């Protein structure tokens, strides 16, 4: 069985990398994937030879489409007649993995760099918000073809029938602005690349290289993102060496900067979960996920 989440530990260059590795399913995440990401983050955090953590994806189309339909649909099979059972199932399947994963992000003592190779939706967009730096890959022709072709973040919670999750209720206020966050969360509208850039969310832009065209099979999209990830990694290594960064300073700095945010995230996750639970129990999200998987409902992109 191939791994849907891959871990790479590079002691020589002091970089730990987590890769979303299910491009055939748009890198969507099951509840198990969630727990797995959390476990890997914990592992990297405890490894003192690592200074930097990278979260990246695979395939050329999308960073990640969010929660896996199949995982959500499993919730449908819960015995509806037993209310206690339903509540327990939701808390167990939806709430707890999110808390676990969010805690591993907020207690991570190394900068987390996200290599955004394409759009991130829902829970995965929340993960991008939890990262400290974002590198972005801009596709060929996107300068001419406009914002729609560039990576974006979409939080389609109000259209799926529930509320902000995984810390996004505070991270969007922090990283964008209050009114802009309200507009995009309440109306489920995509946050376009120029907006992320205006608010200083983007660290480095990588354009598709012309020489990709010659060297790689155009139909094999996987290679483009692999190349992007490699270029990002090389730049990080170069950066650490050139600037002669002190690893202890890096982790200490991260600890100081996340200190207050950590407490705020803990409060936010509680509020998110207690406010989303009644909506999940109403069955509205399940039926909307179902429509989405039957293509009766589309996210407005």
């Amino acid at each position, binding site marked *: 069985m191939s791994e849907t989440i891959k871990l790479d530990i590079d002691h020589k260059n002091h970089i730990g990398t987590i890769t979303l590795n299910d491009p055939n399913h748009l890198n969507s995440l099951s509840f198990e994937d969630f727990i797995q990401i959390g476990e890997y983050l914990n592992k990297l955090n405890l490894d003192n030879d690592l200074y930097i953590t990278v979260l990246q994806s695979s395939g050329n189309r999308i960073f990640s489409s969010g929660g896996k339909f199949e995982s959500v649909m499993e919730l449908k099979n819960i015995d509806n007649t037993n209310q206690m059972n339903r509540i327990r199932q939701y808390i167990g399947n939806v709430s707890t993995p999110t808390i676990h994963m969010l805690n591993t992000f907020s207690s991570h003592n190394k900068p987390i760099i996200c290599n955004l190779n394409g759009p991130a939706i829902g829970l995965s967009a929340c993960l991008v918000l939890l990262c400290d730096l974002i590198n972005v890959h801009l596709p060929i022709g996107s300068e001419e073809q406009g914002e729609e072709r560039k990576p974006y973040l979409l939080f389609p*919670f*109000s*259209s*799926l*029938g*529930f*509320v*902000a999750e995984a810390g996004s*209720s*505070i991270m969007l*206020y922090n990283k964008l*602005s*209050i*009114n*802009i*966050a*309200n*507009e995009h*969360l*309440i*109306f*489920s*509208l995509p946050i376009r690349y120029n*907006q992320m850039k*205006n608010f200083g969310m983007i660290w480095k832009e990588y354009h598709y290289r012309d020489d990709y065209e010659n060297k790689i099979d155009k139909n094999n999209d996987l290679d483009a993102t692999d190349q992007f990830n490699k270029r990002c990694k090389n730049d990080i290594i170069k950066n650490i060496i050139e600037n002669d960064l002190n690893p202890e300073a890096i982790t200490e700095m991260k600890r100081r900067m996340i200190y207050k945010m950590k407490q*705020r995230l803990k*409060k*936010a996750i509680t*509020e*998110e979960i207690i*406010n*989303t639970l*009644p*909506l999940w129990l*109403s069955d*509205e999200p399940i039926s*909307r996920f179902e429509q989405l998987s039957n293509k009766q*409902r589309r996210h*407005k992109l």
Partner: protein
Amino acid sequence: MPAIKPKSKISFSINYPFFIIKLNNPQTLNSMSYDDFLYITRLLEIAENDNKIYFTVLQGSGTFFSSGADFNTISNNPSGDDSYELRLWLEQFLSKNQYITSAFINHSKILIACLNGSAIGLSAAIVLLCDMVYAMDTKSETNFLQFPFAKLGLSCEGATSITLPTKIGWNKSFSKLVFGEKLYFHELLNTVIVKDYSMGMDPLNVDTFNNQIIRDLKEKIKPLYLPACLQMKTVLRASNDTVNTLMLANSNEVHGALQFWRNGEPQRRFALLRDKKISAKRNKIDKSKL
């Protein structure tokens, strides 16, 4: 709740899921007395208690959204009796101002301001308490928010001590609050103002602008589960501790400013403005006679 009497200066209409409040007195640039603001709080209550309402929309008319306090309603007759003055301004300023601000802070429906033009003072503060703001035109230099509190002998009002720094940044807030500088719409684009309709500044277009926003909102909410929208506001407020933070600021602001009213400073300054306006009018008439 007793039925609400209609008022010509401020109208309201229900177009589910929208509750629309319209400032409808362009002759006075939609200046507002405390009674007018209190009337709006009663409209907010109607919206609050109607569970088919999800959005409360504030609209202006004419060239201004609202020019703020109607200073004709503030008298300048110091009694010289401090215990009387204390009682008077607790009633006339502190309780009313705090109540009006808290009505907006606590409103659970999604609050939307449609800015056809400038807003000043408490009205501008209310714009900042809205969840999102759409503007008719952000390029014109005539469109701004202004907080001339220091000039009027007042302090921060309407929770601006919190909303301004969190929405436009700390240093900028000082120049806008302490020096009462105009905060032009183009400075607010992509922070407070989420969309510029770029429709120019013709007051005849205001209704087109207001109607276009309602049409756009109807389009935007089509794919949404509306109860999740309201729950979203609940979560955002809870996670960010918004209501408690603003309520505390609101209380501190009015208690801090009460002494100014007791000493009569804002009243004197409002009277001065009134006189200036009258003499300006007289000059105009005198000149026209010549």
